[in-house]
């Protein structure tokens, strides 16, 4: 009776065993990649807004301070979305007939709020506080990216917990002087000593307790 398994079967079995392991590993790796991909995190996906508002133009080219519109950023958990009246401060004078601005004018006329799409959308069990970060030397750019170069706003960071923890574990590299919080161009000096100095000065400590963000 001839042998059922020829010597080549050995190879086949080795390949299939290691292949299966490799396949599983590949699958898990793919999952991890997918989980960090823009498909899941929505990172770098520009959103259509009800008004074609350009941060690049307003914050970048015109140089309007972030806090002109996001007034609550230094006092509240939320930075605040400007009321229509803030837009109309200027746009009752300039570009009064621009068709792009019709939704803004309509809102002002009818008292119906503009309904902006939320770009930085944390899960409901995460409690982020803007004022706590800007008062301790974390600049807008650190999370929001170069807003002054974005026409449409997209999410500059993944907003995944590992990304938060990266900074919460080692905040020093992301600290800047308070004067530079709203400065889009500020670049940290090569010397890491500044971060350590600021951390001491502003009383920044690594906070990784769950209740820091989850309550």
């Amino acid at each position, binding site marked *: 009776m001839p042998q059922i398994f020829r010597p080549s079967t050995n190879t086949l079995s080795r390949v299939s065993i290691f292949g299966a392991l490799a396949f599983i590993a590949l699958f898990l790796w793919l999952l991890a990649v997918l989980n960090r991909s823009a498909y*899941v995190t*929505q990172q770098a996906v520009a959103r259509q807004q009800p008004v074609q508002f350009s941060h690049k133009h307003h914050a970048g080219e015109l140089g309007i301070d972030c806090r002109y519109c996001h*007034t*609550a950023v*230094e*006092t*509240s*958990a*939320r930075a*605040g*979305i*400007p*009321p*229509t*009246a803030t837009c109309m401060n200027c746009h009752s004078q300039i570009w009064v007939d621009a068709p792009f601005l019709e939704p803004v004018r309509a*809102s*002002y006329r009818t*008292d*119906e*709020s*503009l*309904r*902006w*799409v*939320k770009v930085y*959308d944390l*899960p*409901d*069990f995460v*409690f982020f*506080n803007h*004022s*706590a970060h800007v*008062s*301790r030397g974390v600049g807008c750019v650190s999370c929001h990216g170069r807003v002054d170069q974005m026409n449409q706003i997209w999410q500059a960071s993944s907003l995944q917990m590992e990304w938060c923890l990266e900074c919460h574990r080692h905040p020093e590299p992301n600290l800047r002087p308070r004067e530079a919080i709203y400065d889009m161009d500020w670049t940290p000096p090569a010397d890491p000593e500044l971060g350590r100095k600021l951390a001491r000065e502003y*009383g920044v*400590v690594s*906070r990784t*307790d*769950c*209740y*820091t963000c*989850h*309550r």
Partner: protein
Amino acid sequence: MSQLRPFDLEALRRHLAAEAGAAPWRSLDELAGRPEFIEFLNAEFPQQALALDGEGVDRRHVLKLMAASLALAGLGGCTRQPEERLVPFVRQPEHRVPGKPVYYATSAPIAGFGVGVLAESHEGRPTKIEGNPDHPASLGATDAVLQAAVLGLYDPDRSQVVTQLGDIRPWSAFVATMEGVMAAQRERRGAGLRILTGTVTSPTLASQLTALLAELPEARWHQWEPLGRDAARAGALLAFGEPLETRYRLEQARVVLSLDADILGAPAHGLRYTRELVRARRGAGAGNPRGRLYVVEPFPSCTGALADHRLPLRRCEVDAFARALARRLGIAVPGADDPTLARHAAWIDALARDLRAAGGEVVVAAGEQQPPAVHALAHAMNHALGAVGRTVEHAAPVPARWEDEAASLASLVEDMQAGRVDVLVMLGCNPVFTAPADLRVADALAKVPLRIHHGLYDDETAALCHWHLPEAHFLEAWSDVRAYDGTASVVQPLIAPLYEGRTAHDVVAVLAGQSGRSSHELVREHWRQALGVPDFEIVWQRALRDGVIEGTSQPARSAVLRGDVATRLPPPASTATDTLELVLRPDPYLLDGRFANNGWLQELPRPLTKVTWDNAAYLAPATAARLGLANEQVVELALGDARVEAPVWIVPGVAAESVTLHLGYGRRRAGRVGTGIGVDVQALRTRGALWGGLGLTIRPTRRRHRIACTQDHFSMEGRDLVRRTTVAALADGAAHDDGAHEPTWNESLYDPYPYEGHRWGMVIDLATCIGCNACVAACTAENNVAVVGKDQVLRGREMQWLRVDRYFDGPLDDPALLHQPVPCMHCETAPCEVVCPVNATVHSSEGLNEMVYNRCVGTRYCSNNCPYKVRRFNFYLFQDWNTESYKLGRNPDVTVRSRGVMEKCTYCVQRIEEARITAMQEGRTIRDGDIVTACQQACPADAIVFGDLNDPSSKVAAWHRDPRNYSLLAELGTRPRTTYLGVVRDPNPALAKDRTA
């Protein structure tokens, strides 16, 4: 506990006698130690019983479910967040910062009297009520009813539209109708117009009504407040010849006697008096009086639980007791002592001596549910002891018109029966449900051609009316109200009416032909005229900011006691011992039933009985034994011709041969939550027996009605949980009745945590806790805690993060009552942390025991391992995720939990983080007192302190050093962060029967 079985009372007595001086006991069930009860406890955690209800589950079923849940959980994890919108203002109001709550001072009118509150508003939505420290009736505290007001505001069952005979009509249709009606009435000088309200203390409403009555002199205004104060008024008339308010200054009192007066639990002034009494106790020593509290009452109350000496007496015997005491105080009350009191002669003698020895610094308070004679005797005793002007003061009436409301309602009904009423306008009241049964209000209503009802709910009265007008909740209305001491405050809205709610001012304005004027305008205009100051705008703005209108309290005035008060008393009430006594009481939370549709209040365990979602016939163990009744047995109660069926619930501490029933249940049209819950006992309430009477008969049935009592839930095993001492022993250095509590070892397998920054801790003072459950209600409101319903409470799955355990101490028939609030202990070496397989409960660097909902997979190991039983599991989707109006009322700073997740007390970590960020912005560290937990903030007794244990100057650290401080179950080595200060009593040495030592 499947069938009815009475307790073997003799065995319990023998047991207690054999273990004299033993630890306090939790309940009769525990004491009896029946096999069914042991089984209930040994189910390890009854709340963790099989999640699937009904029939058993087999292996195949389990596998199917596991496969399905694995698949669904896997798929469920793949959802991406739905797109959310940001909706800013078009024109942002000044000073409004998104994400920052704003607090407004307003006042909650409860049964006519105002309690000042600060309402928290998130983005224009009221979410939480706190007490207003500047308001005399609050002093910063709140009670459970106030805490639950937010849920009442967002109740989707509140009436939403104007209806005429059930059809939805616009408000303008009502106004048009009334124009015609009122024109006809004006021709008859208002002869056919009647207005019925509750007790009116609102100066604006009173002036509106007065003006209307001046215009229509034949019209009548009647008042009926089911929790009324007719007896207090009649008592004042007896004693002084005029109706006078009586106020106490408990801070200065050496001896306080309550004659069935729940001075600490009454909604109008309970918060104030609790604060005062507790301050006296804290500041005692060094010449300051402590205020020894004696309480005589038929049914255990919060006041009785704090008493140094409590005497359970039938309600009818309190009158005789007051007379006997008055005689010993030198008041010439005719007659001799009632023979039924002979057994308490030594008690009365000792009390009389104590009262006399206090040098006039005494308070004798009579309860609202006691007859006028007791009130008159209390006045006479206060005068005889020289208390008036020191600890007791009198003032002009607070209600705009203080009248005999039962008589007022009766005369209205008489007019209705006689056909003299053409138009009846009922403002904010529900007489069909609350009126004494013998008045037959529903029958009389049928004879009124036009009936108009204005109320928060489409209730029993609304159903019999032609027009129903939805009432605006106090959080969405402009009005004003007076507090118990007369202090007026403005009720200001935090939100525009959610539905078509109108205030009583609006309705009266329509009657007066001023329908165009808003409540705001009416209230403001009233005060502009009443105050008559040139800079009115400043005064008005200050009143809105502070929550009180300055200088409006009724000044104390002298009162001349009639010389012949003792002889003018009506003959003493019968104390016949051959018959049962009925005692009617308003429910502690639902009051007369007005809050019946409030789930938080329904599910809040009643103080001392710990019953939820029901009322019952509360009996003493001895009475139940004599009648052969078992817990939960339905009995037929008959008084005169009226019959009511109610389940029996045996409560040690109730006076023998006395049956207490709570009003406010058995509502027929309360809403989805309250309708049909409990037993309607109104049938037994007649004008002659407003608060009960003698001659009750009980006929047992064989039926059983399950009662959801939470006392035996989350039971901690045996051991010495509540420690007690006396003032005298404390002075000798004995902090506890038994010194050998603390474990002698302190080792742990785990390395200690360093705690370089803060180390949060809490201390609860059991010596001042009155067991009112305000803390539990406040926690529910602050932390978005879900309501689970009676069925789930029966399974031990209530979700309240904090429970107030009740213990009895001493003999079965007359035990001392003890409370113990139990939140999460935030143990140093927490047993829950080490067993969680997914690290969902971990230790923070500041000592908090963190519960991370998004990690929790619901193994419930943590709860199994918790010796304090403070963890709560979401067996179902308990939280209402769908009703839109509820979403507005939730605290946006706390996660709303879903099913399958464990939760527990967080030490209000959202408040800790808020204080930390505020301190950070101000460039300082967190100060002691910056962080106030929700339970601490609500507590009228200041029994809870929270702070940093690393800061030796903090209050919590000071309380930690107090010799009375002890840890619960310290012998387990859990090193709890929450510790307790033991109970302190100050028994009269002359009363040999020393309860607390």
